[in-house]
């Protein structure tokens, strides 16, 4: 098992499953029982399930509020413009599931069939899954510790009947913790194409994004590239540009040059995105990302 929590004593060690770092790890019980050499059976089950999914892309950011969900939704819509392309959007932000609202699917519920959970379809070729669909009220809080969140992510990957999918886009919460480790771990046998990392231009965001990039290196997750969101604000009245989030250290461009990672593009701040999220449309300027 390569994707391990920091400080993992090793699955073969006498401390396997018993150390402080083992708390919350999905394999803890296995390791403590002495069966540590055997990986979680769910990993193989998920590998089988993912055989019908051609491409898997994780959308990450160390920083919150930079536009991961917005980007994931627009990317999904953009890919699904070709009605012959089957697209799936999985929201693994368990505490703050934004995807249902952004996709205009609030209030939808998940149905179970003989072949597993059915995603909620916003188009014939675009299916969505989120914990948001399992909550009965918009005020319901998901107050779960790591292991329960991990269990939910395992179910999303193993038990959802995605069918034949060309692109599975996985939207994540900010950070480098349980959800991220679990997603990488459970998909470890299924081959993830890579990660798209979202940032805004200012250093306080880039600082967190560099940590996310380090996380990707640690867990051997390829990085497709970085997207700089909220790059510049264009006043709707006078059309002049202002940098609301100034790139005090050169923005994503300098960071990508330093770390030799592709900069996939820059997206300006557009007040209309807030409105279009309700309608589930995407602005034409997102199209140029799709060729990456």
């Amino acid at each position, binding site marked *: 098992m390569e994707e391990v929590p920091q400080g993992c004593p090793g699955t073969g060690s006498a401390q396997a499953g018993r150390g402080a770092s083992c*708390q919350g790890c999905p394999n803890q019980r296995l390791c403590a029982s002495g069966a540590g050499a055997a990986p979680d059976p769910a990993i193989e089950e998920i590998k089988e399930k993912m055989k019908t999914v051609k491409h898997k892309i994780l959308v990450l950011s160390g920083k919150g509020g930079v536009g991961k969900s917005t980007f994931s939704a627009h990317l999904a819509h953009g890919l699904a413009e070709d009605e012959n392309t089957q697209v799936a959007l999985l929201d693994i932000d368990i505490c703050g599931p934004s995807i249902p609202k952004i996709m205009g699917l609030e209030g939808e519920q998940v149905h179970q069939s003989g072949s597993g959970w059915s995603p909620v379809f916003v188009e014939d070729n675009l299916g969505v899954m989120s914990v948001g669909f399992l909550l009965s009220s918009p005020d319901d809080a998901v107050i779960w510790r790591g292991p329960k969140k991990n269990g939910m992510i395992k179910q999303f990957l193993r038990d959802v009947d995605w069918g034949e999918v060309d692109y599975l886009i996985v939207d994540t919460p900010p950070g480098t913790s349980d959800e991220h480790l679990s997603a990488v771990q459970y998909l470890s046998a299924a081959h993830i194409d890579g990660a798209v990392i979202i940032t805004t231009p200012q250093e306080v965001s880039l600082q967190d994004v560099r940590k996310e990039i380090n996380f990707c290196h640690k867990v051997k997750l390829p990085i497709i590239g970085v997207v700089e969101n909220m790059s510049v604000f264009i006043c709707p009245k006078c059309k002049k540009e202002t*940098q609301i989030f100034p790139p005090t250290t050169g923005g994503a461009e300098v960071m990508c040059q330093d770390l030799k990672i592709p900069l996939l593009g820059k997206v300006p701040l557009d007040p209309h995105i807030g409105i279009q999220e309700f309608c589930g449309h995407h602005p034409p300027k997102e199209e140029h990302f799709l060729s990456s």
Partner: protein
Amino acid sequence: MEAAVEPGNLAGVRHIILVLSGKGGVGKSTISTELALALRHAGKKEQSISLMSVGFLLESPDEAVVWRGPKKNALIKQFVADVAWGQLDYLVVDTPPGTSDEHMAAVEALRPYSPLGALVVTTPQAVSVGDVRRELTFCRKTGLQVVGVVENMSGFVCPHCAECTNVFSRGGGEVLASLAGVPFLGSVPLDPELTRSLEEGQDFIRDFPKSPAFPALFSIAQKVMSEAPARLS
């Protein structure tokens, strides 16, 4: 890793404020910082600000902390029990987004010290309100008194033509406060000077009193101070 039990370490702290949001990137750290600075300047005497963060324990700023929940909980307990906080009028606790390990650990660790309560931050748009409603439920379920809701990134005044644009939509903060029956403490507009000031580690409250964000931030601090119950000595 057992946290040392030191009941005395928070005994000198008069008020504790948790800054929360269900949503990432709404400005919890910004509001925490500016609130701390504003409380300092509004106080009767200039005092220093004490600060603790896992950032100070990292060897390099790019180092990723790839920990699962229990290890994060243990560090939070240590921050509460093992840091010599001394005499403080206010302890402002900045949190990550969500309603998970860190939040439960912070509430559990601080509960014996009668925290003042929670300041909940949102931005105006519905996708933020959607997440922050869940945070308010968390507060209710854990018995945290909500001091009020702050709406951040409320509009941007174009420096070229003075047109105010609702970059992140509008109205969310007041809707949220009204839904939850808690006070609405104010709206803080977008200000690139504020962003730059944070990036450069400056004292925004001292250096930019003419900024459009200043009156809102100062007023929020005043309201927090007037909510603080007197503590029996």
